[in-house]
């Protein structure tokens, strides 16, 4: 009997429902520092998590010691009387949304090719700024997931992912510069060339330091700065609604953002690494519009929170690994793009800033929307052109206010760094330079 069948069989009759989540993944990566290849590494991961529902409560145990199935089942059953409530119902069959999240070329990419591509990338960007030192990482993975429950539903699927980063630094007494490029995808899609060309351009733009007075500026936020949008992610989650954490709890149907803002979660996106045919509870993946033309539609949910709120499941029961019970999480949170390229957005600004990198986003209060972050890499725009980099600034504002009252424009070039978005332009964000 297979591991999964054996677990489900042993749990039978001892609880209302049981669900096994099993993952197996492998990853290879190459890492460079000080311009040189430093490390080649490989990882193999396997493990399983069992969730039992007994008297309406959850018993949960995760482990990668999967030889002792009695111990796994008994531990979950022992914990269930004390566990959290489960109001949903596990699906009795799994229906895949049909997308293909597995890319053969990414799966079979060898280390020799990764090493050659990485060396080429560093050589290309070094040509633009020979005084810089580079660090990089290129990484590819495949993952095989199975979710099965005691109602007989079972789904297995494979995914790939490809990503990494390129970081360039220039060290001088009194001025240390560091800029990175980074993004993640389900497959190879030109990242390496893109990182080299974008970082090269930024390092050249950064050569000149210009002074900037404290004040309110037209501000282009680059996708890398999506970390500061955390409060929006939190506010659109059904778990936050249930727990009185969301400022939008009673605002469904109301206009909460500028009418040009449409936000959706896209489990069907096969370009980004977050998509999968079913979520981690076996609910079919879908595209869910959360905010349409500024109007709040729904919150992402898992089976428990959907049932509590009396709404349809959205397919967002995510685990973020093995070790925690599923709860509402994003597959690919997406800000609908606009039509202008970054150069066009810059050309329209007479006096403003580009915020390319910030530090300290996680210091902000996760629900109020207020933030105050260090500008780790920022550029000054004069008369539609980048004139140089400014230093030692802090950017402050409130993300909810930005999306309701301060939006100027949205760009077209989307990147995925946890939030699938293009550059966004806001009016009057505060930059303090001391």
């Amino acid at each position, binding site marked *: 009997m*297979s591991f*999964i069948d054996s677990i489900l069989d042993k749990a039978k009759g001892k609880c209302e429902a049981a669900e096994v989540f*099993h993952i197996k993944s492998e990853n290879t990566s190459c890492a460079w*520092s*000080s311009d*040189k*290849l*430093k*490390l*080649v*590494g*490989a*990882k*193999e*991961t*396997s*493990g399983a998590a069992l969730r039992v529902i007994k008297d309406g409560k*959850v018993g*949960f*145990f*995760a*482990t*990668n*010691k*999967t*030889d002792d*199935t009695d111990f796994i089942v008994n*531990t979950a059953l022992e914990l269930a009387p*004390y*566990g*959290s409530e489960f109001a949903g119902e596990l699906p009795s069959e799994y229906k895949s949304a049909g997308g293909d999240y597995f890319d053969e070329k990414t799966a079979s990419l060898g*280390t020799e090719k990764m*090493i050659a591509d990485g060396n080429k990338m560093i050589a290309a960007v070094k040509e633009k700024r020979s005084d810089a*030192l580079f660090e990089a990482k290129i990484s590819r993975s495949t993952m095989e997931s199975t979710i099965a429950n005691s109602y007989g539903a079972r789904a297995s699927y494979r995914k790939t992912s490809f990503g990494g980063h390129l970081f360039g630094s220039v*060290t001088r007494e009194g001025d*240390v*510069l*560091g800029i990175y490029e980074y993004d993640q995808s389900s497959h190879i899609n030109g990242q390496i060339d893109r990182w080299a060309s974008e970082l090269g351009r930024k390092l050249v733009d950064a050569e000149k330091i210009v002074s900037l007075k404290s004040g309110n500026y037209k501000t282009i936020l680059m996708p890398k700065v999506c970390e500061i949008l955390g409060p929006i992610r939190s506010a659109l989650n059904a778990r936050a609604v249930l*727990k*009185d954490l969301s400022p939008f709890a009673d605002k469904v149907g109301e206009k909460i953002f500028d009418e040009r803002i449409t936000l959706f979660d896209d489990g069907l996106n096969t370009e980004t690494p977050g998509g999968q045919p079913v979520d981690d509870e076996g609910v079919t993946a879908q595209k869910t519009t959360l905010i349409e033309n500024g109007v709040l539609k729904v919150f992402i949910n898992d089976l428990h929170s959907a049932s509590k709120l009396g709404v349809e499941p959205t397919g967002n029961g995510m685990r973020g690994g*093995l*070790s*925690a*019970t599923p709860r509402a999480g994003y597959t690919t949170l997406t800000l609908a793009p606009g039509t202008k390229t970054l150069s066009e957005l810059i050309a329209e600004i007479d006096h403003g800033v580009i915020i390319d990198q910030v*530090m*300290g986003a*996680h*210091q*902000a*209060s996760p*629900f109020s*929307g207020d933030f*105050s972050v*260090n500008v780790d890499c920022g550029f000054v725009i004069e008369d539609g052109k980048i004139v140089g980099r400014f230093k*030692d600034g*802090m950017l*402050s504002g409130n993300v*909810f206010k930005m999306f309701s009252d301060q939006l100027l424009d949205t760009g077209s070039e989307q990147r995925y760094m946890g939030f699938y978005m293009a550059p966004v332009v806001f009016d009057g964000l*505060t930059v303090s330079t*001391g």
Partner: protein
Amino acid sequence: MAETVTTGSDLQERMQDAIKAGADAQEIEIRIEDNENTTIAYLKDDLESLDRGVNAGGCVRALVDGSWGFTSFNSLHNLQDRVHDAIKMAKAVGPGKAVIPDQAPIQDSVSVDLKNDPRDIPVSETIKLIESYNRIMSESEGIVTTSSSYRHFHYKRYFMNKSGTYIEQEKMRATVVLLAMALDANGMRHDAFDYAYSLEDYDIVFGHDNLAKDVARRAVEIANAPKIKGGSYTVIVDPRLSGTFIHEAFGHLSEADFVYENPDWQNILTMGRKLGQDFLNVTDGGTIPSEGGTMNYDDEGTPTRVTKLITDGVLTGRLHSRETAKALGEEVTGNARAVSYRFPPIVRMTNTSIEPGPHKLEDMFKDVEYGIYAVGAHGGQTALEAFTFGAAEGFEIVNGEIGKRLRNVSISGNLFSTLENIDMVSDDRMYESVGGCGKGEQAPLPVGTGGPHIRIQNCIVGGES
């Protein structure tokens, strides 16, 4: 499908056998880890989660021809094949310049003196206790929602290398975190939090009724406090925050892995460089007892010690792995750490602290006409010479007295100018070990941070003007 992990009695023998497969490597390291954890979390009125897990696996790192290969896995069968894999990967890198110093072989087994072992406590008891703290907060005036959580982890690591070292090390931590949220005038949520932790005793979970009341009171006060105005201030940083400050502002730059191949940084961070006033002393040490970064050996088998990073205002040391120490001709310090068996060790801090100084706390406030008192840590981050950190709570200082609360106190700065601007250091000190440190992909690594009160002149504080 079923994969087996065994950390049984024959483990040492099997590691020994596997290492023999690395005859042509300069070094082979095998690390096996067995980690178990339990999390109990209340959110608002109900239990949100009760999660228990076991995370066990291993890794091999090989140094061949001056280059490293690394492999990690969950199945501990065929450790010899894993050694071959790591060697193959090191060879794929091609010849490199990594050299490591000889290590005198060590055989040791380090266990924690557990006073009350959290693994022996029925989960029902802990749940009852956490629920009671949660209720105290949620029944307090003005509180909209609460979060109360308990977590413990216990791990054992088994380390063996080709140099002949075999070490077993145990570690435990139990932590309680209480958080309450209140609404401001615009309906936005603001939180206050506090915590307690121990590295050897479950009993730390008891007796926090007053802490729960205090967290609720602080949340309401913070929600009603005005936002701080951005600008340059004299800031007095409390001991709970000064440790985070020195970790972010200076600690990361003392990690030798980013200077050892960067001559520009070596020119800037030369030993003997004056960085602060004579009373500024900074240390890092895995041998400081009972904190997050405490351990007898690092993940390369090097014994830990206290390293003096800044002595009397002058740069006197940095943190090393075997490779960086050899490259810079300095001594190993026991700072090669890995967050788990999933990663190779890299240079990390252990317990980093500003040492107590000569000043009395009351004298530090006395001549401040208008300034900020920043209390408790809300995270921090660093990028090369720039750093930022958030205070959990902030107050104005007016004519030497602590005045009204301000919210969103977040400080940014340049390492060199900020260290120079520390003009007073108090004679008290406190260590903290709640935060986890992130570097590259490796987070959260348990670290300790410590410090006294410090006063910083001309400190940039973010905020709308």
